[in-house]
């Protein structure tokens, strides 16, 4: 092969050549839509050519471009990018499957329910791993609340595939237990047990009981609504679990107030940006022409992380750990702000 031919190939295929490595923005075809409950729709996607899709770690999510009627931000925008957890075990998939709860707010999930049909092409990006199993996991305690069952199902399927053991706690309202049958089928296998809970009190009782009786080397993972995750963290602490064994993924963020006004200086240009209450640092940076990647805009996904050189910070995100927050060298620009009214911070962009 001559050198120019190699150069041309590298130009055409900048990274891995096999299509199963593709995780960039691309179109997939809807091949199946299943109604799981009154409010949850299961959507299955395939590559248009039917080929192999990129593998993913359990708990990973797919970013789907949706076209909702009501958009949370700028009016001239017509699309929104939503992250949905994949429900498979992630090994050499030919299909990606997500389960979407109708939120009823005219947002992206309503578009999935109302507009999406078999045969449609949807734009996706990823999968992205943000809730992966820990590599030293000996046993897993998987806790799901409501639609938070989707990443938990992915973890459970991966545990079964690799011959591990896990206990699943599923808290749901009767009649709204999406994927309940899938979990019950998994629990019929050796090494997997399922505990179902249908009330808040029952969930708290099951959590306390299960946290107290897990073998050494267990990691716990939870996804669900904020009150359930709070109960989960409390139960873990009460059972003496070290922080490093307790993992969670949030899909809703608490409402935040408008915040204090502060000033951000862009280190590379010296440009000073005034950020008034109600405006995020992310919006200010984007308006000033700085390209900052972003996705959820509510402090959950971690996409809009910016490095910080100096200044007092008020962290309001759900991504950074306590030690990362206290280090003060990074912040999530969508929700976190200067530490007090009139604070000066310097972002390293």
């Amino acid at each position, binding site marked *: 092969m001559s050198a120019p031919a190699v150069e041309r190939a590298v130009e055409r295929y900048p990274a891995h050549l096999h299509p199963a490595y593709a995780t960039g923005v691309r179109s997939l075809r809807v091949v199946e839509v299943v109604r799981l409950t009154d409010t949850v729709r299961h959507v299955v996607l395939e590559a248009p050519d039917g080929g192999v899709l990129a593998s993913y770690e359990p708990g990973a999510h797919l970013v789907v471009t949706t076209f909702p009627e009501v958009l949370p931000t700028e009016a001239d925008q017509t699309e929104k990018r939503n992250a949905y957890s994949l429900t498979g075990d992630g090994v050499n998939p030919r299909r990606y499957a997500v389960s979407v709860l109708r939120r009823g707010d005219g947002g992206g999930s309503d578009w999935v329910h109302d507009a999406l049909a078999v045969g449609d092409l949807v734009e996706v990006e990823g999968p992205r791993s943000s809730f992966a199993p820990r590599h*030293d996991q*000996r*046993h897993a305690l998987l806790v799901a609340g409501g639609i938070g069952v989707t990443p938990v199902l992915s973890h459970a399927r991966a545990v079964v595939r690799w011959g591990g053991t896990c206990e699943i706690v599923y808290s749901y309202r009767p009649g709204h237990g999406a994927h309940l049958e899938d979990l019950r089928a998994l629990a019929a296998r050796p090494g997997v047990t399922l505990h179902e809970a249908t009330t808040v009190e029952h969930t708290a009782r099951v959590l306390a009981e299960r*946290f*107290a*009786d*897990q*073998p*050494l*080397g*267990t990691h716990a993972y939870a996804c669900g609504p904020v009150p359930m995750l709070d109960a989960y963290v409390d139960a873990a*602490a*009460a*059972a*003496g*679990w*070290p*922080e*490093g*064994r307790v993992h969670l993924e949030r899909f809703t963020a608490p409402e935040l107030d408008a915040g204090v006004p502060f000033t951000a200086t862009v280190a590379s240009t010296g440009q000073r940006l005034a950020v008034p209450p109600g405006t995020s640092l992310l919006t200010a940076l984007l308006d000033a022409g700085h390209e900052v990647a972003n996705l959820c805009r509510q402090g959950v996904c971690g996409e809009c992380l910016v490095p910080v050189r100096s200044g007092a910070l008020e962290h309001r995100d759900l991504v950074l750990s306590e030690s990362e927050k206290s280090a003060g060298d990074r912040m999530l620009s969508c929700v976190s702000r200067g530490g007090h009214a009139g604070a000066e911070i310097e972002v390293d962009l």
Partner: protein
Amino acid sequence: MTVEAVRPGPVQPTPATAEPVLGLPVWPAEPEPVDASGTSYLVVALGTAPRTATVAADWVRAAEGRAPTRLVVADDLDAGRSDLEAALTAARTGVRIMLVGGQCDVLLGLALARAYGAGEAELRSFAVDGAAAAAGEATDLPVYCAHCRDTHRVHAPYGGEATCPGCARHLEIHHHLSASRGSFLASDARARDLA
């Protein structure tokens, strides 16, 4: 920036004057207190040193008042291995494991606990001969011979030389402690000599 390549347990700032040598264990100067957040405790006393007994007794006294506490006592790790394995199998997450004894037994005991899934936040340890070893004295060390591929108890200082009890080679004990094996790497000190 200081990087600790290997730590036998949670490290307290010691009044060390020099930088710690990478690859050597960093022992606390005094036994650490019992971690109050545990919901059960496993105290492991290995060896016959008088200090081992007193440290273990102090730990048990402090732990018993808080939560169920199990004590495993043995003359060395080999003698206590089956008891310790039974205790580790029965342990539930939320346990705090505390080992005391000579560092040879403690390092191998820590490796066994890790093999059963214990993480660093769940482990505390104290070597009664740790200070002597840090001062350069010969103590019993767990040594993995790269040639006969076995782990032996060898009396030598850190970085010292000794004859391998397994293959009789003259070994150099490297500043290279493996947390998962619980032993120091050793290799033929005369490997470069022609004769």
